[in-house]
């Protein structure tokens, strides 16, 4: 999709103190990378880790937790999607299927 223009919402944003938002990443078991699972609110990092444990790993889904303040994440902008990701479109030589091998070569 094309990018968003900053859209004013018709929701009142009251100037009050919220616990900041944290993005949660969980390594479900050793050998896998951390994966984004969602977010939660916490007053500090320590609380964010504890809360993440209770909220996102109630069924033994976790071996390790990362918490990152949501406002510390710098994201690529959706309007740069073409710019960033299209150039890889024509570099099919990066993929193994680009290379035809004689049938005799079974595993490579």
């Amino acid at each position, binding site marked *: 999709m094309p990018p968003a223009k900053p859209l004013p919402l018709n*929701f009142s944003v*009251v100037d*009050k*103190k919220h616990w900041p938002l944290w993005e949660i990443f969980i390594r479900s078991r050793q050998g896998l990378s951390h994966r984004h*699972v*969602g977010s*939660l609110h916490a007053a*500090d990092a320590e*609380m964010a880790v504890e809360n993440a444990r209770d909220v996102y790993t109630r069924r033994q889904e976790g071996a390790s937790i990362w918490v990152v303040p949501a406002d510390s994440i710098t994201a690529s*902008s959706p309007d740069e999607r073409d710019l960033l990701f299209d150039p890889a479109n024509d570099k099919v030589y990066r993929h193994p299927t680009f290379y035809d091998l004689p049938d005799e070569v079974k595993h490579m």
Partner: protein
Amino acid sequence: MEMDLLQHFDAYVAAEKKIEPKDWMPDAYRKTLVRQISQHAHSEIVGMLPEGNWISRAPSLKRKAILMAKVQDEAGHGLYLYSACETLGVERDDLIADLHSGKAKYSSIFNYPTLTWADMGAIGWLVDGAAIMNQVPLCKCSYGPYARAMVRVCKEESFHQRQGFQIMLTLANGTEEQKAMAQDALNRWWWPSLMMFGPPDDNSPNSAQSMAWNIKRFSNDELRQKFVDLTVPQAELLGLTLPDPDLTWNEETGHYDFGEIDWSEFQRVISGHGPCNKERLETRRNAWDNGAWVREAAQAHAEKRAARRDAAGETAAA
């Protein structure tokens, strides 16, 4: 320009592709999602109360643990959903304020009282059953964060309906008093459960647009019929009677016909005049208000600690 975007958006969504938080989306799509996801989140949170009412009186330690875990899951589900909703640029605290002011709605089923232990069975079996039927299609909803939250929710919910059915089964096979308790709970929860699917299709103003946007995949009446068809044999298995004299198998349609739903009751409860509306909201408001000093304290401590750390850092640097 706006027109192009809209056409592009509609085509994109129609092709079953996902919208992610920072993508362009029509204002109405965003608002529909915020309304639906926050209502859904509120329902999970208010929905903790009727069942929470029996945690202290669960009749065995095993049942107590199961019920606590179940109600806790609902808090988790509320949290996943608020978190999905926040990706649309709203703050959870503001959504909660809308709930507390009565501006936001939640599922009307939770405005009914839980009078006996059998209600824990009926809620798990019928209310969670109806909820799952509504929720499974949402796992494929066009908005990525909502769909992902629903995948998580549905995965965890599968035990909820089973534990409810198992409570009913135990009661239905128990003493005469227990069996009567189960029948009474079924009598009270059956019709409100059918109302959970929302107004009939010919009177559901937002449905068409939500279907076009792949937020909603099946109509209210379709899901309701599916629920009835699945539940009737389960009630038979329990040896309990569904409180609907018009309920009959229709050979022609291959579905169960069922009686008229009392939509005036639905309207009454939705507009705030159910048996427990005031109590439920008041309970939520109290929990929130009584917790204000705790939230402030945690915030103040975090700030003080950060300041102390900065000061220590500066001293060390100097």
